[in-house]
């Protein structure tokens, strides 16, 4: 864990706080309970990976955290704000200001140059076009592809496109970055570089990252890894990016080894989460 993340966790600074979050798709007999009471905290400056089998609710959970999907029950506050208390336009404005997105398929607009793609969040926030493109070029330089700013996405490799997507996600200095399978379309080496980039960005900007992934090779970059199954968090463990186990309830300095991060009262070696937080 980075120094800033450690400081934040020591100060119990929580960027995302989910309690008993429930989400059901459909109704009646065809209803599918995607989230069955999820408890999860994401600390400021932390890189949390959300893993689990397909259909376990990871995408639904990050959609709720990102504010692009309404939950049906429970509580979820992001940066101290509860989406449920916001009007749709306020929620949209909140996302524009505070949330960055990195998608599995990059989702770069193919007809725009990469500088124009990166400038989009600034344009959404009302920054004049010329100024936005200038800042986009600077951001592209920071992610190492400043010389390609005139190119369209199709002329870039997958890794370069994901760098563009990361630049786009960061340019408006969000507090929360939501990444959906950011390395699944990339080869191992490129994926590692993308994660190094994300890891570095998070440490420099006190940014909280929630990364959904199946790619075990990138677990080493996580501060914590939350394993989901069947609509709830099964286990939260320290990632290799984390030098110590942690408990958001007790601070960060000296948690006992193998203690469950969300359940300081669980026996050592237990992987069970806090029963209070289960559905």
């Amino acid at each position: 864990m980075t120094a800033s993340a450690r400081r934040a966790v020591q100060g119990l600074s929580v960027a995302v706080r989910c309690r008993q979050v429930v989400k059901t798709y459909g109704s009646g007999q065809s209803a599918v309970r995607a989230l069955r009471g999820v408890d999860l905290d994401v600390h400021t400056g932390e890189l949390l990976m959300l893993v689990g089998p397909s259909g376990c609710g990871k995408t639904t959970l990050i959609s709720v955290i990102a504010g692009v999907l309404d939950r049906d029950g429970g509580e979820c506050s992001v940066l101290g704000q509860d989406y449920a208390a916001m009007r749709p336009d306020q929620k949209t404005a909140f996302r524009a200001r505070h949330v960055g997105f990195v998608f599995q398929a990059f989702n770069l607009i193919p007809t725009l140059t990469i500088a124009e793609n990166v400038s989009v969040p600034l344009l959404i926030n009302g920054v004049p076009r010329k100024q936005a493109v200038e800042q986009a070029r600077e951001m592209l330089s920071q992610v190492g592809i400043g010389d390609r700013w005139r190119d369209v996405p199709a002329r870039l490799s997958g890794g370069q496109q994901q760098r563009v997507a990361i630049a786009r996600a960061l340019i408006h200095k969000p507090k929360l970055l939501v990444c959906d399978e950011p390395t699944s379309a990339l080869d191992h080496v490129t994926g590692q570089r993308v994660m190094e980039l994300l890891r570095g960005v998070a440490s420099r900007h006190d940014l909280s990252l929630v990364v959904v992934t199946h790619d075990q090779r990138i677990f080493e970059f996580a501060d914590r890894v939350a394993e989901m199954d069947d609509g709830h968090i099964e286990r939260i463990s320290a990632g290799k990016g984390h030098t110590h186990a942690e408990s958001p309830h007790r601070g960060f300095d000296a948690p006992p080894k193998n203690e469950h991060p969300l359940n300081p009262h669980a026996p050592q070696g237990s992987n069970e989460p806090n029963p209070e937080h289960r559905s």
Partner: protein
Amino acid sequence: MISVALKMLLRDKGKYFGIVMGVTLASMVITQQGSIFVGIMTRTFALISDMGDTDIWVMEPKVQFIDDTKPLQDTALNRVRGVPGVAHAAPLYKGILRVRLESGEFQNCNIIGIDDATLTGGPPEMIEGRIEDLRRADAVIVDIIGATTRLARRGPDGAPVPLAVGDTMELNDRRGVVVGISRNTRPFQSQPMIYTTFSRATQYAPRERKQLTFILVKADAGQNVQDVCDRIARETGLAAYTRDQFKSMTVSYFINNTGIPINFGIAVSLGFIIGSVITGFMFYSFTADNLRYFGTLKAMGTSDGTLLRMIMTQAMVVGVVGFGLGTGAASWFGASMSGTPLAFRLTWELLFVAGTAVVVICLISAMLSMRRVITLEPAVVFKG
């Protein structure tokens, strides 16, 4: 974000071209077919237009349009002249006679007999000769289109030789000598126009008890023309219309009693429908192809209002470009057909109609796309 919308549209050249072509096709067909329709309708009142000095047309009350000749008694002329507010009233004969050419061929022609004394009602422009030449014996003036086409004789090599000043013809066994060539507005009926004096026209025409077709009236200066019309109608029992009213009557007759508006209406409607379908489909397809990116923009915090403005801007751009190309093509077509028998008259009203149609097409297309974007859940961006 408008600049993003424009780049999304303009840089997707295939789709952009397809959408613009749809709008272009619609506006071109609507403008071109509409202009031909308006051109044909304008020709129906060509004679009224050519007699621009006439304020009021007086006729038998049952007359429905300019070619509907129901003669008046000769005494009607003096009765009209006696109506207060009438400065001048002139007789006009209008009929169709079979003309025998020097070659021995026959040709039906429109005969216009104008006032012997004042020559009121003569052709609007003389290419050769003078209107006053009609006072010479057996004199007739022939319009240039008739002179060069139907009244032209065959030369030794088979090529048409236009009828010229000095040539003669036979009208109902009476001699006519061409003393002038005029330029007229091309009439709806394709027969040549032959001008002569009223008295000579009535000699050419088969003898009837009534031979006065219309009375052309000039109102006194300062008189309200409509008031004079009403007064003539009241005091003589005849129908009296202003020039514009008579034009409208004539156009209404053709619209209500011929298949012309239906034929052109079908062509215009087809242009509108086909243009709408092509544009709507292409625009919807463009939006559908970009739905992932609209979803991405939505997830990143673009408001619905901004997305609507983006789509409206895209629709407006293709509308303006397509309308410009379509009406430009139609105008070019009209200009290139100038001087041919094709009737083509492009008016600002027609441009307004075509523009409105394009707006409707673009609105329909945009609405379909907007609905798709507005109902799009931003969470779709995480669904791969």
